[in-house]
């Protein structure tokens, strides 16, 4: 069980309420595929992701970015018991998708950066810190069922 301060809860949920899930999700996934190109190995079925422009314009990348960000929303809704809530999703990443959990950190970094670019100075150091903690908790929950 993670301990959240009231300040952290407020910082996370207040910012989340302003997030355009489709936009932020797409941008984060685009950055993952551009900045860490080896992650493209998991998206062979997405069509043309051969360069930054292709990735940015790819409809499947956009759609999947939205899917991933929706899960981040679920995580926030279950932030007090995330390991349990994400059991199935963790198993899915391990046993079906076979994603190296190191990549969760890369996505988390991209998400933090997209939030920074979107919200600018409103992404204050304390809000940023709360979100890094949320991201770390998500990564831990997603990694939990790997064996």
């Amino acid at each position, binding site marked *: 069980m993670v301990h959240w301060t009231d300040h952290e809860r407020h910082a996370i949920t207040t910012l989340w309420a302003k997030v355009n899930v489709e936009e932020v999700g797409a941008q984060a996934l685009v*950055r993952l595929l551009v*900045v860490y190109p080896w992650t493209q190995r998991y998206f062979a079925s997405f069509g043309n992701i051969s360069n*930054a422009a292709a*990735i940015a314009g790819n409809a499947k990348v956009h759609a999947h970015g939205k899917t991933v960000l929706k899960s981040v929303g679920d995580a926030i809704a279950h932030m007090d018991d995330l390991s349990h809530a994400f059991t199935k999703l963790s198993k899915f990443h391990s046993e079906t998708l076979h994603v190296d959990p190191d990549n969760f950190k890369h996505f988390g970094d991209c998400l*933090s950066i997209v939030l920074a*670019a979107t919200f*600018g100075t409103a992404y204050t*150091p304390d809000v940023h810190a709360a979100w890094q903690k949320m991201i770390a908790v998500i990564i831990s929950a997603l990694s939990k069922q790997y064996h």
Partner: protein
Amino acid sequence: MPLTDADKNHVRSIWSKASGKAEELGAQALARMLEAFPNTKTYFSHYSDLSVKSGQVHVHGKKIIDALTDAVNHIDDITGAMSALSTKHAHTLRVDPANFKTLSHTILVVLAIYFPADFTPEVHLAIDKFLAEVSYALAEKYR
């Protein structure tokens, strides 16, 4: 993963804006690292204030950005440019090199905040590679 010519141009381009705001960007990156990744506070136990308002954080943050500007200006020989700083980190400061990645991340976050239009995915990639090279050069003398 060496820097391509395109990477170097991206780095120079965004850094030409960043270098002029060295103190502000440096203070932000350092303060964010200290707040979001508390293990890094262990290296600053001698600071009375670790927030973004701290004079000590401002002075040190500026030093960091200025050192990176030097690396940008010697982008074809980052190892050479970082040599003295590598010795200092290895023998005097003895910062665990894992933390270089942490500070690199908060530098990226700060670039995204201050230059959202310039910090495109390609520029993000280029700076990430550049900071990885700087980090490697900084750790060269460790053992």
